[in-house]
């Protein structure tokens, strides 16, 4: 069985310690030299609930101000880590908007997500209480909330493991496998417009699997019998 890939996007304001969390998780140990330009900088193979998974983390650190890129980054991910710093109010307040944007991009209300209050080692400078974090997670549809510290290695692994479980729950087969094609009834003589190619379909039975290449595209079908379909495969 091929290694299942999980793409996780780490989001949050600048300076909340996103990169520290990522590096802590990927490297596991304290390093004196870390090169972020190589392929495996953000990849890690882990075992969750007996399954081997390959995690790929996309971190937006440094590009927080590239608002135009957010949607593209978000599209790429299956699970999201929303990070704030417990010593900064503003980083906490920006998260609801980020979540809205994720839901918008994913066009779905149930997106695997973990809310993380980072830098919990700096308890003496804390301005966001644990309860506030809990409350926000409730507002976020009861998503998992963890306080973590990259520095003291608190809860770092849990964040990612939990996210993998969430993705697994939501998508048991795995998104890498092709979704099943839907069955569509075509009428005799239906004309298929597909990317400018005209195909005349002369079948009068349920197609078991109507495979359209390449990947996910809309096709528009017009039959001669006053039926207009928009079919998404």
């Amino acid at each position, binding site marked *: 069985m091929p290694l299942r890939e999980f*793409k996780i996007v780490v989001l949050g304001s600048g300076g909340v310690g996103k990169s*520290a969390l990522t590096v802590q998780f990927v490297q596991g140990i304290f390093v*004196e030299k870390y090169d*972020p330009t190589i392929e495996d900088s953000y990849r890690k193979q882990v075992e969750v609930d007996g399954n081997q998974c390959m995690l*790929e983390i996309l971190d937006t650190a*440094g590009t927080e101000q590239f608002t135009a890129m957010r949607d593209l980054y978000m599209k790429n991910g299956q699970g999201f880590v929303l990070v704030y710093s417990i010593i900064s109010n503003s980083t906490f307040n920006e998260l609801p908007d980020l979540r809205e944007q994720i839901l918008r991009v994913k066009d779905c209300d149930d997106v695997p997500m973990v809310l993380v209050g980072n830098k919990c080692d700096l308890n003496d400078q804390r301005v966001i209480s644990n309860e506030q974090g809990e409350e926000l997670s409730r507002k976020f549809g009861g998503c998992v909330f963890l306080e973590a510290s990259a520095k003291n290695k608190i809860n770092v692994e849990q964040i990612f493991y939990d996210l993998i479980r969430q993705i697994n729950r939501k998508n048991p087969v795995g998104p890498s496998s092709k979704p099943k094609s839907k069955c569509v009834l075509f009428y005799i003589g239906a004309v298929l417009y597909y*990317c400018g190619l005209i195909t005349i379909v002369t079948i009068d039975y349920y197609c078991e699997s109507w495979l359209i290449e390449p990947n996910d595209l809309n096709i528009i079908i017009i039959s001669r019998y006053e039926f207009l379909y928009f079919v998404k495969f």
Partner: protein
Amino acid sequence: METTGKIVPPIINTSSSSTTTTTTTTSQTQPPVTFPFYKPDDETQIVYLPGVNRREGSLAIKCCNLPKLIEKMTQSLNYDHYFTSAFFLTFRDFTTPLEVMHLLISRYTGPPADSSKDHLRLFEIEIEIVQNKQIIGTLNDNDFQNTELCNVTIEFINSLAEDIKNELFLMFFRARKLAKPPHQQQQKVSPRPHTTIISSAASTMRFSFSVSPKTQSPNGTSNVLTGLLGTNGASGGSPNSTQQLQSSSSFDNNFNNRASMKVSKGIMSKILSPGGSTTNLSNSSIGSNNSNNSSSNGSSSSSGGSGGLSGSHSTSMHISSAPMSPSHNVQPHQQHPNNVDDEGYPVSNEKTAFLPEMIARELTVMEFELISALTLNEFSQKAWTKENQAINIQNLIVWFNRISSWVSTKIISKETPEERAIIIEAFINIANYAKELKNYNCVMEILGSLHNSSISRLKNSWALISPKANELFSSLNTVMSPDINFKMYRKMLSLVSPSEPCIPYVGLFLTDYTYLDESNPPLVNGGMVNVERIYLIGNRVQEFFQLFTNCSYNFQSQPQVREAILGEKVWDENETFRLSKIREEHNNNGTVSPSGSGGSSSSSSSLSSSSSHHHQSSSGSNLTVSGVSGSKRKGFASKYRMSFTGNDPPPSIASALSERDWKILSTNAKVIKHKKGKKILAMGEVNNNLYRVMTGRVKFENNAPEETRYLECGDIFGEDSFLYDRPMLFNVISDSDDCELVEIEKTFILQLFASEPILAATYYKHIAVLMAERLKFVLSANSSHESIQTNSAIGTYSHLGNSLSNYGHGSLSTSNLLSSSNSSGSSGGGSPSSPNSASPKLTSISSSQSMSAMNLMDNRRKSVAIEPSTIDILRNGNDSRFRSTFGLSTEEIIIKSYTCKHNGITGTLYITKHHLCFEGKFFGIHKQKMNPFEKITKILPEKGALSLTTNDKIKKFSFKSQEDLSEAYGIMTKIWKNHFGIVRSPTKTVSAANSPPTPPRSPKIGRGDSFTGISDLPSKEEWAQLLKGAKTLTFKKGEILVTEGTEFHKIFQITRGECTIIKGLNQTDINTSANPPTISSLSLGHKNLTILAKLSAGSIFGEMNFLLPGGSSTSVVVNSDELEVYTLEGYFLNIMLKSKPLLAPKFYKYLACVLESRVKQYRQSIVV
């Protein structure tokens, strides 16, 4: 961000006294007593990497302590320029400038290493000098606060040989001058986000790759340096700056950077300027820079002898570099061969079509200018993540987001999926060209937009993308995919040959830099400098910079293309998303025909669709791709060209009724012919019809002869009956024998509107525009006269202003619109395609109308100037005073007033919509009587008097003349009958009041723009829909929201606070330095200031500018301590209304009502 294992905080506050410098490094807070160098390379000093040849220099070092590092860096053997640069980029993470300065000085003044040969020592000295320059280059404003550092530096420079001394001094003071004085910086703290662009100029100095020491040192080592100098010269983004680079003396690197900063600023200010509010900001930022310069100028000249010299020198430089905006370094315009397309279509001036290739090129040229302005210093300590720093990186980021939004705006602004598909394809092609030009930043900008949820959700549009474009798109996606740490993209970048210019995606570099900076501890092994970190950062930075510093693009910038790109409006992300939602809903309502749909939709017989088609074609000019149509569309990139027409108004509902619309309206109409002198409508009558003059002339008259008006062919009247059921204020009489009128029943029109919402919207918009014109006229008429004279004159005018003057404006505006439609060809009223012989007729109409418009204008002026009769003053004795006397609501206006006698007292009888009032004085006894019409049971004319029966009491009013009596009787009976009529029952008012038309979020405080008794205004839900797109802005007292004469396209609604509408605000009253500009004092006694109205919560303003072209005719100033407004963008409204045909008529009707009531208010406020 804290990284594990970091011992020293990354940001050492250099402004604090240097004695607090952290301990773990070899502490050199005092001038070093012991010479720290040349200690043996043992474990306590330096740790080498295993398995690396030590001759590799810095590459072989894992970590070492600071003096050792300085020693190694200044050794002539293994001199590594890039490493040195990286050191100066990162040294603040583990030490202070002062400490480094001390070390460098002691290294320079101290004895040479034993191992150094004499000729090498010479070179070492050169290196040390270079490094001294470099550290001076990195000094920022905080450092200049550190007096010890300054003193040490100055002392050291003074000790140097003459030529080097002068050079270093100059550098030092220039750096100091560029740095902002801190007290200025604190003042600059502003709540507006865009001020982040203003950054400390010192941080823009490129200290490393552009450092060009005049080394005449022996050996081949100087090649490195001269090579660098050459590189630097070639890297100048624009011809001008390159020249400047070479012409200015070589050590002037900070000035050069200043110049290049200017270049980028030019672009940036252009980028920012269309954004409305940001214009001021960019201006003020430049202004503040200037002031900073001048103030720091003074300080520097006082602190040092040569400072004055350098100060003036630099100022003149600044001035000379100031006009170096992009437009100057652009070559004189050359006709690009692409401007004429293959089929030989000439490219018109108004709508220039550009090939995707040209756009990609121009974007590349501009982006190259921006990226060339980057300096190393801006990356130090991730300065770009902080406010007011790293201006060039910030510029790039702003640019990136803006271009991305621009792409989205272009796509969203298209109405049909077909059009959008064409634009999407065009941008895919542009991205592809950008990729070929190796402008990966641009590719990312476009992909960022196309993957934006507002764009990617437009499934119907994407479905129409040609297979070829689809293929291109997916290949671009593969190449730029973030998968596996941008594997494909990184690979591609590594293959870029050094001789090719390239613009890498800046975001990825910033991420890399962030990780390098945060994930590698600056100090290891108990306080040793992590040399590997410096090396990694230096390597990555060098890799990044060499992509665009080795060579440049040799395209000519195309001014037209540039202007077209920069000049266009851009919507922000939320706005695009909202519009995208509308677009999709829109798509789902109408069936999308997948094939070439050109023919089918236009053949549809429904009025709404065909009229919308008409608007579409007139409005879709914002960006058109020519030569492509429906099914004939081929997948060839060259077929798509984009045209820019600057800031076209986005598609909206036509603002005037076309002949075609009139044909539909008059299907059921009566055509009435009148002989001269026939009374069509009488004063006081409630009109229920809409009239249009076809031929002949119609006279409007009341008792005042100066208010007589004439209407001619094409003019309409009675349209105000759609807003209010108000009695006429004029007698309408046909004035020629051939007078022909079309009479359309209001009920019929309302029925028609129910099934033809677009027609209704056009109609109400038409009325709203008429009202707006009228209001504008009232304002301009008022402003031309002053004080007392104005009052009475306005009084005269005001009477006609009420109900009927708008038909006068009707002719005015129609002619305006007609002429404008002739000249601009925009969505005007004339539809030449209409089957009847409308076109020739129309021209005649327009000419005659312009005549009548002129007459009207003359009449108005006259009427304003005429000395009013006493009766006028009495009669117009301002409605508000009248109302306050009788305690009536604002709805009550005087229809007519007469002098008459009642119970032996001579006084004035006022007739209003609901009441009959009498006011008289008898030997100082003030008599007031008020009778509601409802209570009057009988009205009888008697000889010379009218007798009214109320509550079984008979009241008699005797009139001066029989004419007055009969007229008054006519008016009163009509009103009276109406009160018992079926048409307007008071219950209607009540039912309408149940669903108040005021926006739901606005509290009904004070005088809100609420209208009870008028049906078909937007409902609560619809307001919610409209306001969904609104932004909330807050202002402080005295701030000017709208300045007279400025153009904007927004509607504001006050949610909290108050503001004042002011006429005659001068530039001198405005404190422009503040942002937004404020008014220094709200002095009501100011001779030129007229306060027209006070608006409180619930009121709207900006509607005139929304409807009419041209600048605002009034200023709006905040009057309360805090004002909160919703802002609805005009284009959003236009698109929203266009796509929601049921809402549009209601909204325009609402606007018309607001304007109508405002005309009244303004009039009153001037009178009072």
